[in-house]
């Protein structure tokens, strides 16, 4: 039995290491694409200026081609960003499996949509197609941003719930240790109040995000939700400090 437990622990440790490597590799791919997009975008701006100055047919053709390249590059950048975000969400997803899975499904939908867009854009031959595409993309991007910020907050909530879980486990270990003076018990029990307050802040962060998303204001809600996350962080830090103080004051070495 202990061997099985050990093997299970080893398996999950390895899995978390692989997941971390996956995320780092996805992040690297995203950063490389970011450079590519910047180059293509600057090239598009140059061609656009040239066409504005001279208005020749050649300049127009070059402008259209450079716009297509920049759009494809931009959409690919967003795909890689969303893929990396999806992988990041996997970590500590167990703390909120349903809502995390929901976010991951939505992210995958947007990745598929962006791939489809690139296939469409590569067939464009005229300015009208590009203009229509730009207007359509602007509207959709509001929804994409909404999903991004919701997922970012979900990731933070999962992360801090993991921290609170580990703090609970640690305080339990300390409370049950026979070398801890009985006088410490009250102090340890009081920490559960701070933990509840931290949980409340995390809940509030999610509520604010969902509330503002319904009103089509994803970017506005992110800073307010982030403030609640920071308050939860402060409570976590306090609990950690309090636990240290309890050990320093009440641990009886034999």
């Amino acid at each position, binding site marked *: 039995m202990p061997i099985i437990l050990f093997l299970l622990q080893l398996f999950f440790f390895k899995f978390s290491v692989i997941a971390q490597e996956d995320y780092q590799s996805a992040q690297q791919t995203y950063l490389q694409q970011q450079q590519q997009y910047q180059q293509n975008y600057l090239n598009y701006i140059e061609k656009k200026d040239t066409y504005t100055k001279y208005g020749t047919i050649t300049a127009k053709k070059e402008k259209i081609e450079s716009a297509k390249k920049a759009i494809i590059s931009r959409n690919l*950048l967003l795909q890689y960003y969303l893929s990396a975000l999806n992988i990041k969400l996997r970590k500590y997803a167990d703390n909120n499996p349903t809502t995390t899975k929901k976010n991951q499904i939505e992210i995958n939908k947007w990745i598929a949509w962006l791939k489809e867009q690139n296939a469409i854009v590569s067939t464009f031959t005229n300015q009208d197609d590009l203009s229509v595409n730009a207007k359509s993309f602007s509207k959709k991007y509001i929804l994409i*941003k909404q999903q991004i910020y919701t997922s*970012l907050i979900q990731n933070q909530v999962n*992360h801090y719930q993991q921290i609170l879980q580990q703090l609970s486990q*640690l305080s339990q270990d300390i409370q049950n240790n026979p070398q801890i003076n009985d006088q410490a018990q009250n102090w340890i029990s009081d920490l559960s109040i701070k933990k509840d307050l931290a949980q409340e802040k995390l809940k509030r962060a999610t509520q604010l995000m969902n509330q503002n998303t319904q009103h089509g204001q994803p970017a506005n809600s992110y800073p307010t939700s982030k403030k609640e996350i920071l308050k939860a962080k402060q409570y976590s830090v306090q609990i950690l400090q*309090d636990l240290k103080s309890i*050990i*320093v004051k009440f641990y009886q070495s034999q």
Partner: protein
Amino acid sequence: MKDKPTSQNIDQPQNNPLYIPPTNIPNPNQPPITKENFISKIPTKIKIVFISISSIIILLLLAILTKNTVKHSFTKNNQSPQITTTPSKNTTQPQNSPTPQNSDNPIPPQWQNKFDEIHQLIENNQEFLPPKIDEQIGL
């Protein structure tokens, strides 16, 4: 016949053979020593230096006092998050506990690792914000 002794009043100090006259005889012409006379005797330069040094010391003390008052009110306004519900028990660090058994205990290794792990989790939490893009390429 013995000479009749001349009448001598030995109570008078000058008639007392053991009387020692005082050496500090005040000069009646010298004016009495007062505070004003003392101050007026001090040279002007020394007075100016003394007043300058005193002023500088007073200003420094005032500055230090003001700084401490501002620092105290700043830290008071920037405390940890306000608790929205009033807890029934004291949730601060155990400062009013009875005399601890070992007040300078280091944290045992089995818990130090866990503390470090949780600390890392808190500190290594980085945001992954979306890239800045032009939504209107092609317009």
